[in-house]
C-alpha cells in the first residue's frame, strides 16, 4: 500500500527521472505482445504486456493517472525477462524503463518492517560481501549435511514455508564445505600453449552454492587454451540490486568490479551466468550519468562475454566430446539471449557432443519464470509459466535439460519435481555438461587404450 503522499512523490520522481524520449519511442505497434510471457499467461491482458506497461509509465509521467496499486501490480508482474526488446523494431529499451520505474517506487514506498529488515540484510549486508556470502551458504551447507535437513523434511517443519519455497528447498544443490569455498584459485595456466588471456567473473551465488559449476567453467577455459585470472577484489554484480529497486547500491558494486578488472590486460571477462553477465554488460548504462566512470564502464562492458561464446571462438566444438546416448534440449537464459545476444553458441556446443541428439523445444526462448526472485514474490504466475515450460520440455522427450544460468537451473529443477519427472529427467548447467562430455571422451579413450593393449 502506498499513501497519497508517497504517490505524489513517486509521480514527481517519474516526471524527473523517467526517460521521456524512450517512452515516446514506443509507437504502440504491439509487435512485442506475442513474446511477452505475462501477457500470454494472464489471458491477454494489455496491462500485463510491454506496450501496456510502457503506456502506464508514460501516463504517470503525463499525470493521466496516479501510480496507484494497479500500476504497481502491472510492473511487479513483469518478469524483467526482456523478451520484448529484441522483437521491438523501434528499439525501445524496455529493461531500462522498468528498472528506473521500479527503483523510484521502491525508494519511495514505505515497506513493512519485516520487508525492510530483509531487504537491508540481503541487499546491503549479505550480497556485497563475498565473505558473508560464504558464511551464509556455509549455514545452508551445515543444514544440508548435519541431518537437520532430513529432520526438517521428516517432521514436516518445512510446512511453515509457502509451497513454492518448500519445493525450492528440495532442489537446492549441495553446498560445498566452508573451507573449500574459501580456498579459491587466483590464477590458472592453460592446458597447452596460451591462446588467450581471460579474466573470470565468479559471481556470488556461483562461487558458493554453484562452486562446482565455477570449477567446471575454469577447467573448460583451461582446456580451450586460456590463461585464467580470477581477481579476488571482484564482488557481486549487483543485478539483484538493480532489478530490485536498489540502484544506488548496484552502482557502488559496479564501480568495485570495474576497478577489480580494468588493469588486468585480458582479452575477455568471462561469465557463466546470463543474469550476471547481462547486468555487467550494462554497467555503461548504469553509470552513464557519472562522467569519470562512463568511459571506464564502456571499456569494461566491451570485454564481457559468456563462456559459450569464448569456447566457440576457440573452436572447442572441434574437440571430441562424448556423452552417453541421450536426447538433450536447451532452455535459453532470458538475459543471456535478450541482452547478451548469445543463443547460437550454446546450441552449437551441444550439437557437437557425440551421443547427444539435440532437440529444440517449442518456445525455448520464453522465460521459465525464475526471473531473479520473481518465483518467490510472484509464485502463482511463476509456476504457471514454469508448468507450460515443462509441458514443452516433455514433448521433446529430452532426458537432459541444459540451461546457462543458476536461477534458471533451479527453476527447471523445480519444474522437473513438479511434473513428477525426477526419475527420468535432469537439469544441468551447460558448462557442467560440457565438462562431463570432455571427460567422457577421456574415459572412453582410456578404455580403448586398455582394450588395445590387453
Amino acid at each position, binding site marked *: 500500500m502506498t499513501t497519497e503522499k508517497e504517490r505524489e512523490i513517486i509521480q514527481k520522481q517519474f516526471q524527473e527521472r523517467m526517460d521521456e524520449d524512450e517512452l*515516446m519511442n514506443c*509507437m504502440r505497434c*504491439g*509487435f512485442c505482445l*506475442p513474446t511477452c510471457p505475462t501477457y500470454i499467461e494472464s489471458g491477454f491482458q494489455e496491462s500485463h504486456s510491454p506496450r501496456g506497461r510502457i*503506456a*502506464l509509465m508514460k501516463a504517470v509521467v503525463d499525470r493521466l493517472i496516479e501510480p496507484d496499486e494497479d500500476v504497481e501490480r*502491472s510492473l511487479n508482474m513483469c518478469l524483467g525477462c526482456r523478451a520484448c526488446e529484441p522483437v521491438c*523494431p*523501434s528499439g525501445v529499451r524496455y529493461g531500462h524503463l522498468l528498472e528506473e520505474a521500479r527503483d523510484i517506487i521502491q525508494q519511495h514506498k514505505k515497506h513493512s518492517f519485516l520487508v525492510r529488515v530483509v531487504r537491508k540484510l540481503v541487499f546491503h549486508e549479505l550480497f556485497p560481501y563475498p565473505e558473508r556470502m560464504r558464511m551464509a551458504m556455509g549455514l545452508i551447507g551445515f543444514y544440508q549435511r548435519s541431518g537437520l535437513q532430513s529432520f526438517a523434511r521428516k517432521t514436516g517443519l518445512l510446512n511453515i514455508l509457502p509451497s513454492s519455497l518448500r519445493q525450492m528447498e528440495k532442489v537446492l544443490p549441495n553446498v560445498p564445505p566452508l573451507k573449500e569455498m574459501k580456498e579459491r584459485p587466483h590464477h590458472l595456466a592453460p592446458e597447452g600453449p596460451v591462446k588467450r588471456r581471460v579474466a573470470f567473473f565468479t559471481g556470488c551465488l556461483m562461487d558458493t552454492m554453484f562452486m562446482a559449476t565455477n570449477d567446471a567453467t575454469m577447467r573448460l577455459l583451461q582446456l580451450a587454451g586460456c590463461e585464467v585470472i580470477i581477481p579476488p577484489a571482484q564482488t557481486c554484480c549487483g543485478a539483484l540490486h538493480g532489478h530490485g529497486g536498489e540502484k544506488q547500491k548496484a552502482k557502488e558494486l559496479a564501480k568495485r568490479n570495474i576497478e577489480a578488472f580494468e588493469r588486468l590486460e585480458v582479452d575477455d571477462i568471462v561469465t557463466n551466468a546470463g543474469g550476471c553477465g547481462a547486468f555487467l554488460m550494462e554497467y555503461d548504462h548504469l553509470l552513464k550519468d557519472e562522467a569519470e566512470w562512463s568511459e571506464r564502464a564502456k571499456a569494461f562492458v566491451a570485454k564481457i562475454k559468456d563462456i559459450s561464446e569464448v569456447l566457440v571462438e576457440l573452436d572447442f566444438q572441434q574437440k571430441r566430446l562424448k556423452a552417453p546416448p541421450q536426447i538433450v534440449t536447451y532452455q535459453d537464459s532470458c538475459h543471456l539471449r535478450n541482452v547478451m545476444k548469445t543463443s547460437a553458441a550454446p546450441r552449437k556446443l551441444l550439437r557437437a557432443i557425440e551421443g547427444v541428439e539435440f532437440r529444440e523445444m517449442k518456445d525455448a526462448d520464453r522465460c521459465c519464470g525464475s526471473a531473479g526472485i520473481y518465483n518467490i514474490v510472484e509464485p502463482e504466475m511463476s509456476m504457471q509459466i514454469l508448468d507450460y515450460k515443462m509441458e514443452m520440455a516433455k514433448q521433446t522427450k529430452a532426458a537432459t535439460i541444459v540451461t546457462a544460468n543458476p536461477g534458471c537451473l533451479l527453476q527447471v529443477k523445480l519444474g522437473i519435481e513438479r511434473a513428477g519427472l525426477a526419475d527420468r529427467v535432469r537439469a544441468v548447467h551447460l558448462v557442467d555438461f560440457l565438462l562431463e562430455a570432455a571427460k567422457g571422451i577421456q574415459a572412453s579413450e582410456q578404455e580403448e587404450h586398455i582394450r588395445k593393449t590387453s
Partner: protein
Amino acid sequence: MRNLISNEVKQQLIRIVGEENYDDSKAGRLVYSYDATPQFQSLPDAVIAPRNTLEVSRVVKICNEHRIPIVPRGSGTNLCAGTCPVEGGIVLVFKHMNKILEIDEENLTVTVQPGVITLDLMNAVEAKGLFYPPDPSSMKISTIGGNINENSGGLRGLKYGVTRDYVMGLEVVLANGEIIRTGGKLAKDVAGYDLTRLFVGSEGTLGVITEATLKLIPMPETKKTMLALYEDLEAAARSVSKIIANKIIPATLEFLDQPTLEVVEAYAQIGLPTDVQAVLLIEQDGPKEVVERDMKKMAEICKKEQAVSVQLARSEEEAEALRTARRTALSALARLKPTTILEDATVPRSEIAKMVKAINEIAEKYNVKICTFGHAGDGNLHPTCPTDARDRDEMERVEKAFEEIFAKAIELGGTITGEHGVGAMKAPYLEWKLGEAGIAAMKAIKQALDPNNIMNPGKVFAKSTRKRVVVTR
C-alpha cells in the same frame, strides 16, 4: 468527464460477463485508451471481455438502452485512431473469443471467432495445405476482427486482393442487440443485399462481428523472391508501373526508399543494401515454370529501368527474412524520432512514379523528412514522417506537407487511405474523397443500423469537416 455508466448498469453488465471480465480500474482503462495511432488518447469508462455471442448481444442491448458508446477492439494496431474511445463508453475485447471453430477442407473455408490472431489462422490452415492470403504487416498480432473491420491489405494484396475478397459470411450483433448472419459457405448467393461486404471495412461503426467464415485457396506450389536495387527513386517507381503494364501480376511488389532501408537494416541486420536510393521487393508464386518465367521477365524490366542490380533470394529462409524485415518498416522508422506520422495515400498503379516524385518535392518544400515505403504494386504508399509532437513549429509544417500529399493523391485519381481506414484520424477528410452526396448516403446507412450512434462514435464521420491532418488541439 461525466460518468456514463451508473452503478446499476455496471451491476447489470457484471451479471452478464462476470466480475473478472469487467474492469473499470484506472490502470485497466488506461491501457485501452490508445491504439497505434500517434497523438490520440482517451479513456474508456470500462473494459468488457464477453465470452460468447450471446453475452455480446446482451451487453449491446444494455448499452443501446443507456446510450453508452461501444468500441470493439482487436489488438489495437490500427493506424487511424479506430479504437481510441474518443467519446468514452466501453471497450469490448475479444480475448475469450479467439478460437478457430472449423477448417472445412471440402468447401475450402475456415470459420473463426473475431479474436483469432491473423498469423495463427494462417499457420493453422497452412498445416493443411491451404492458404489465407491477406497478410497485413501486423499479422503476428492483428486479429481477424480488426482485419475485417479495416479491410486490411498486405504484401500479397497485388495478386490476391485484400481481406474483403476472403470474407464469405459473418455473424454480427447489431446495435439493437439482434444477432444476424450474412452470407455463408456458398460460392454463389444473391438472396438480398450483400451485407457481408457492407460490414467489411465498417470499422466497428455498424455492429460487432462475432464470427466469420473466410475463403481459403490451395497453397501455391512454389515461390521465388528477389530484390531490385536502384540509384534513382523514380526509376524504381517506374519499374512498378512497367511490370504491371507488361501483364505480369507478381504476388508481392514492395517499395522501400533509402532512409527506410537504413532503419530496417539497423533492426533486422540481414545485410540489406543501404547505399542505394530504393529497392523493390518482388515475389512470384504458382507453378514452377510460370514463376521462373515471370521472375526472369521482371528482372529484365527492372534492369531496363536502370536497376543497378537484381538479386534472387537463395533460400526460403533468406526470402522470409526479407519479408519479415519489410514488415518491420513502420515500427523501425519509429526509432528515428519520438513521433512517427504515417500516411496511406493510394493512387492508380500507373501514377506511382508521379506520386513518389511529388512526395519528395513536398518534403523538400516544407523542410521535413519523409521516408517512403509501401505496397507499390497496389499503388499504396506510406510516406512517413519522423518528427516530435513537442515541436509545434515542425508539426505545423508536417501538417501542411501531408495536406498537400493528400491533395496530390486525389488529383492523380487516388484516395486518402488505401488500407488503414478512416477512424477518428481521417474522418475530417472523408468528404474530400466522397463528396457531400457520398457522405449523405453513408450516413443514411449508419442512421438506419445504429440510430442511437452507440457503435464506435466519432469514427468515419466527422462532426465538422476540418482540415487537420496531424495536429489535434
